[in-house]
């Protein structure tokens, strides 16, 4: 209901200049029009909120003016204040009427790279708010805010600030890498000349950028690796000497933290120093449609040199809407046409999410959105970093189809996956990084069921007639992407006061370094951390011992305590976030996609830990898409629940 796009600037001049020229009668009429306009536009509540800020300030300003100019000039002063208020209201109408995406577009026109920054910032603001909320939630879950005085609670909350900022910085790095790898900073290539563009603009036609037509790649698609990745302490996390040719699917295997993701980052041409590492050697790509031969040591490149789908979709999605995610994708083969986009959304079963905001989608849906928008058929090399973890069976089949099609075109697909069984069937080559992984069986144990400990909530989302959960129970929840598995755990946790572990470990990590994180995992440990050196809290020693034992069990004891939390691999962060949950010994543990980011060996250790908890009377509820974990749950005498069409049902074995 605001002024139309092309009349915004004249409107701004009008609302600033007109009040200066008008006398009382006309000014009141103009003010009335603006008042009614804004009321119809944003409603009385927003208008009142605006008045609450600006009316007192204007009155104060008027009072000071009166003090200076003398009370005999009150009429003039009142006129001045009225003009000020009406001009402000006019400008506010303009602010209300311009959507942020229009601001970004105008910005991109004048300052293209800062326009990208603005778009990212607009995406980050709500994320920062949510991140702060998760941290407060985590503090409450760990029992920090109970029995704390106002000052103490404030001090505790203030202590999460560095961790919050470090997480935000890490997220910004992820977004920056996404920008880099997708070539969003590269200048746009226009298909037509300036004259043609002017004509198209005048006729209201769509102005298309240049693109590379996807074709059958020649035999020249090759990736030559002769490099070594070293940590700052000199430890090598990967020595690679390979020549990979197009028309192949290559599966990279290795234990958590062995440098698989770092290698993909290097090939994707994004900053190889996600963690402060040094890359020695050469990487050579040939067969790129526009750049031809590429020596990666000559980077960084503004253009996309490969198609990289990183882990954690919620940290790499750039756009504030599904449509815009498609709009900024595929720089190489040119922007999506409306029809193409709709067809692609339908293929990936996302058509009904067209109007959604990406942050409101489930992790699986976000992953599918990233894959749908960014798998660029014109790019010869695709790098998939655990791209299948959040996907359900239908999603994985769609990904498999896309990958096999790309291989048939002559493209090279490099896949990093911990659950490899499904990939092995289509992979042409398997490369082990570090020592080859022995085939690992998940430890199963039969536990006698104890007394009843809880039941999932019956809310508007799911109706169910399930038997109650008993001590020692193992329950695996499955369902399609977006069916509500995470929602079930979250609701259950908030209604019954049970701790739960989300898929993304960053939602449960509070400290900036491992030392800070360990002290923030228990209120007593935090108290000990703040106490002067001589003061020993007796209870703290026991808890510290228990924490150390668990760190050893989870393979975290070798990590230096001064290491920043975000320098750890995803698997290490995941295990670190699980520590406080294991220390707390709740009656039911709610774990979302427990296998995410963990290699088979670490997952087997973790499952062993869960078996131990079950034996001591704790019930375990996990969600997963992995067929291996479903089989493990069945062998261990577990129950399988399925969510479908808003119904939560027990699957009979």
């Amino acid at each position, binding site marked *: 209901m605001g002024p139309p796009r092309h009349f915004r600037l004249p409107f701004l001049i009008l609302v600033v200049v007109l009040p200066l020229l008008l006398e009382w009668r006309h000014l009141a009429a103009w003010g009335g029009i603006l008042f009614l306009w804004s009321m119809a536009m944003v409603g009385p509540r927003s208008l009142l909120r605006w008045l609450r*800020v*600006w009316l007192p300030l204007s009155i104060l*300003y008027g009072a*000071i*003016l009166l*003090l*200076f100019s003398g009370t005999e000039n009150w009429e003039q002063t009142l006129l*001045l204040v009225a003009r*000020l208020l009406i*001009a*402000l209201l006019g400008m*506010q109408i*303009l*602010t209300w009427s311009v959507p942020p995406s229009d*601001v970004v577009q105008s910005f991109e026109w004048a*300052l293209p*790279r*800062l326009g*990208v*920054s*603005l*778009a*990212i*910032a*607009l995406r*980050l*603001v709500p994320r*920062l708010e949510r991140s702060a909320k998760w941290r407060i939630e985590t503090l409450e879950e760990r029992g920090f805010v109970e029995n704390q005085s106002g000052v103490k609670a404030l001090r505790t909350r*203030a202590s999460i600030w*560095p961790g919050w900022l*470090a997480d*935000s*910085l890490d997220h*910004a*790095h*992820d*977004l*920056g*890498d996404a*920008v*880099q790898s997708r070539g969003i*900073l590269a200048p746009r290539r226009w298909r037509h000349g300036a004259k043609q563009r002017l004509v198209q603009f005048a006729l209201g036609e769509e102005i298309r950028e240049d693109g590379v037509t996807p074709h059958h790649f020649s035999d020249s698609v090759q990736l030559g690796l*002769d490099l*070594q990745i070293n940590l700052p302490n000199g430890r*090598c996390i990967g020595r690679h000497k390979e020549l990979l040719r197009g028309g192949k699917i290559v599966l990279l295997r290795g234990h958590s933290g062995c440098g698989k993701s770092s290698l993909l980052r290097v090939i994707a041409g*994004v*900053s*190889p*120093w*996600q*963690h402060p590492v*040094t*890359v*020695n*050697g*050469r990487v050579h790509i040939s067969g790129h449609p526009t750049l031809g031969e590429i020596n*990666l*040591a000559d980077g*960084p490149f503004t253009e996309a040199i490969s198609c990289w789908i990183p882990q954690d979709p919620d940290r790499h999605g750039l756009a504030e809407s599904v449509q815009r995610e498609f709009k900024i994708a595929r720089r190489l083969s040119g922007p999506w046409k409306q029809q193409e986009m709709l067809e692609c959304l339908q293929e990936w079963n996302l058509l009904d999410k067209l109007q959604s905001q990406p942050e409101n989608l489930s992790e699986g849906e976000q992953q599918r959105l990233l894959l749908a928008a960014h798998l660029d058929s014109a790019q010869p090399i695709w790098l998939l970093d655990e791209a299948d973890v959040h996907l359900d069976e239908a999603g994985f089949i769609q990904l498999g189809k896309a990958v096999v099609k790309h291989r048939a075109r002559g493209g090279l697909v490099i896949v990093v996956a911990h659950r490899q069984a499904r990939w092995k069937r289509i992979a042409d080559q398997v490369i082990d990084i570090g020592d080859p992984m022995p085939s690992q069986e998940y430890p199963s144990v039969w536990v006698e069921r104890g007394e009843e400990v809880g039941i999932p909530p019956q809310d508007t989302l799911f109706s169910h007639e399930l038997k109650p959960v008993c001590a020692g129970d193992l329950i695996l929840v499955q369902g399609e992407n977006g069916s509500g598995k995470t929602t079930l755990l979250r609701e259950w946790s908030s209604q019954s006061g049970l701790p739960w572990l989300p898929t993304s470990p960053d939602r449960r990590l509070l400290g*900036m370094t491992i030392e800070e994180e360990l002290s923030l995992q228990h209120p007593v440990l935090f108290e000990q951390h703040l106490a002067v050196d001589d003061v020993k809290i007796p209870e703290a020693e026991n808890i510290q011992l228990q924490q150390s034992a668990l760190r050893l069990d989870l393979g975290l004891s070798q990590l230096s305590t001064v290491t920043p939390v975000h320098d750890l691999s995803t698997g290490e962060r995941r295990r670190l976030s699980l520590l406080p949950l294991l220390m707390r010994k709740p009656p039911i543990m709610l774990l979302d996609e427990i296998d995410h980011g963990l290699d088979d060996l670490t997952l087997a250790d973790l499952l062993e830990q869960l078996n131990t908890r079950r034996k001591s009377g704790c019930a375990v509820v996990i969600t997963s898409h992995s067929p291996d974990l479903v089989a493990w749950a069945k062998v261990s005498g577990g129950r399988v629940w399925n969510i479908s069409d808003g119904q939560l049902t027990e699957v009979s074995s």
Partner: protein
Amino acid sequence: MTFSGIQAWAGTPGGIAVWLTVSFGLIFGSLLLSVDRRIRLGRDAALIALLAAVASASRVLFAALPNVQPVTLLLLMIGLHMGARRAAAVAMLTALISNMALGHGPWTFYQALAWAAVGTSAAILRPLLVNWDGTKVRIVPLAILGFIWGFLFDWIVSLSALALYQSFEAFLAFIIAGLVFDTLHAFGNVLFTIWLAPSLHHLLWLHRRHEAGRWLPNLPDETLKREAFIAEAAAAAKHLEDPMAGIARLEGEN
């Protein structure tokens, strides 16, 4: 209009407002153009975005407290670590984003300008604000600078009143009306410096450390030696498998 006419007009409040705005705008615009050209890495763009998002979110979060917000301190730290140009970019984005929630007006431009000046001052005074190797921030000089900017910032923003109403009296009234708020801003800056400056400094230092990662064209010597050793050993092993391999057969032998 004659030259003397223009000269006379330039001395009036309206004239002063116009030439101040134009000249500040030109300096600010050239800073922004320069930073826009310099952004080559996605991480650069994202870091500017993050800092602008943090500053905007904290400004909106503290909106209930009149003029107490950590944006000035953030800009001081950004200027200190990333230089004047990037501080100008963050300043502009912060003013733009936070005013989407708090209300835009002529002050948006002056806020961006003032915050850019805050960042520039920190970049210039860097030797006074950090220790010899840049690993620690000096809280007292930073707090003093924050205190001074509490007043200066608001006075620069008040220039929007001069531009809008073109009267010296109105401008003076605006300054005096805001003195209480300026004082709150100044003390707020000191408090935020004590609370947030060390962790912010550590974090931005951490970012610079990450950016210090390198790509070296040659493999380390010990790796090459090891590979050569393995290759020799493999060749020797192959030779051992067939001890007769090196002996040439004489002609006529079967």
